[in-house]
């Protein structure tokens, strides 16, 4: 075996192991950034390319960059479909007291509402409903499940 062939094989092995590592990391953290859910598993669509929900970090109500992008798509779609009204359903994960979570869900839905309004959707087309921690989409007791449940979902009202 000459040196170049040895190096070539070694390189292949190195590449293979890098790919494997990448896969492993992907599996572990690919669905969350920090503790905000970035996966697609629970997401439904208002129309093609218009996701129905945005996700939040623990105890947070601020919109992430990805959430703002989703809401801009929703706003554009709502401007085009001016007869459709929506309910923004705000949710929290199970790791908080019931009453505080009701308030938190209401605040999350309103963050989304404010953003939709900034992008030209009139306030009278949007109502807000907080479910607190009462309606999780994922019943698991782990951080990935909780991240899916911290959400505001835009639902057609008519």
């Amino acid at each position, binding site marked *: 075996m000459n040196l170049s062939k040895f190096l070539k094989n070694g390189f292949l092995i190195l590449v293979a192991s890098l790919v494997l590592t990448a896969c492993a990391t992907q599996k572990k953290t690919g669905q969350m950034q920090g503790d905000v859910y970035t996966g697609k598993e629970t997401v439904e669509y208002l129309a093609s390319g218009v996701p129905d929900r945005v996700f939040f970090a623990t*105890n947070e*109500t601020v919109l992430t960059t990805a959430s703002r992008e989703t809401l801009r798509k929703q706003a554009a779609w709502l401007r085009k479909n001016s007869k459709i009204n929506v309910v923004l359903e705000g949710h929290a994960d*199970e*790791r*908080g*007291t*019931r*009453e*505080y979570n*009701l*308030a*938190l869900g*209401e*605040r999350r*839905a*309103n*963050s989304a*509402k*404010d953003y939709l309004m900034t992008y030209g959707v009139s306030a009278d087309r949007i109502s807000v*409903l*907080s479910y607190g921690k*009462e*309606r*999780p*989409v*994922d*019943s*698991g*007791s*782990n951080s990935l*499940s909780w991240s899916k449940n911290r959400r505001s979902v835009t639902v057609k009202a008519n």
Partner: protein
Amino acid sequence: MLLRYLFVVLIIIPIEAFALIEVDITRGNLSPLPVAVSPLAIDKDSKENFEKLLKKKNLGSEISVIVENNLRQSGLFNPLNKDAFLQKPDIANLKPRFEDWNLIKAQALITGKVTFVDKKLRVEFRLWDVLAGKEMMALAFTTVPSNWRRVGHIITDKVYERLTGEKGYFDTRIIYVSEEGPKTNRVKKLAIMDQDGVNNKFLTLGNELVLTPRFSPTNQMVTYLSYFKNLPRVYLLDIETGMQEVVGDFPGMTFAPRFSPDGKKIIMSFAKDGNSDIYTMDLESRIVERITNHPSIDTSPSFSPDGRYIAFNSDRSKYQQIYVMDKNGKNVKRISFGNGLYGTPVWSPRGDLIAFTKLHKGKFYIGVMRTDGTGERLLTENFYQEAPSWSPNGRVLIFYRETKTNSKGEGFSAKLWSIDLTGYNERMVETETDASDPSWSSLLSN
């Protein structure tokens, strides 16, 4: 229906005996007091009448079993096995042979008699100090036979009060939320039961989500949150008539309701445009007052028993903490300063403590602190638990606890638990279904 039958309590032999025995309730249940609860004596006629009426073979023993269970559950008493009793119920009630009771190490003895008089249930009972060989208390009362379980609870309350020096909490009810179905779509109903888990009744059908029921001080009314027509609002329910009405019909969500100590107002949160503040509504005049006005979340308000202060939950310092303010919203002071987040403050009926839920490093705790935030004591730690509610004498807390689900989402349950203020005597309260959001009534009779 529930409360219409007021008890006539007649003290027939009020003897102010000097108690040699007493139960120290500040030290927990390290050595529960051995007590013998003799079956209540019953004559043949009464026995047959009650059997026809209530389908209970021997009402005398049934009532004594209620007393026995109550005493055991309190953790302060150790009711002795009836098999060891040497004296017959009727003779013991006339004049106990104290040597016999001493022999089985009973320190206190409860005896009594039930009779069927004018279609009513007449009960007398006596509490005896075995070591001193003296009667400590004797009471008799008459009620409708269907109230027989309450008779057992009232006897326990009287015995508890005589031996501990504090009011009991046995003739009481718990209102709670019954839960069924998958975690992602729970069906919730209001339910009410006696404090020992018996006489369970559902008050709503489960058509809409209901949360956080709380008793009025008179026990007749309940305030709670209902999602009727998908509009989360605070409601008022009369448990005698079943009449319901919305009280928090504001343009937004109203939630976290509780009564003021005089029962005349409801204090609650009102959420609008992403901000929750605390309001009161006078139930007679319907006048609404805004108590807090702050861009943070303000919720879970609870009045002090004298009505002068309000404890509440706010995240005005970024995360959930407990605050106390005057009843008009002035002089807001943060009182929780330990590590972690604090929620669900509930003022003790005695006024000296505030019970709370604490979240720290992924664990939930039920604890108490003084009303200025000092003297924090954590009573119990678990994966998830919250929403403590005080027994009317301020000795016991009832709360709910949820279990972790596995990776398949299985294994979830929600149950009611109670724990003594001392941190001892933690026990599950049996319910027909899963259960959450318990609220303890005040004493039904006094």
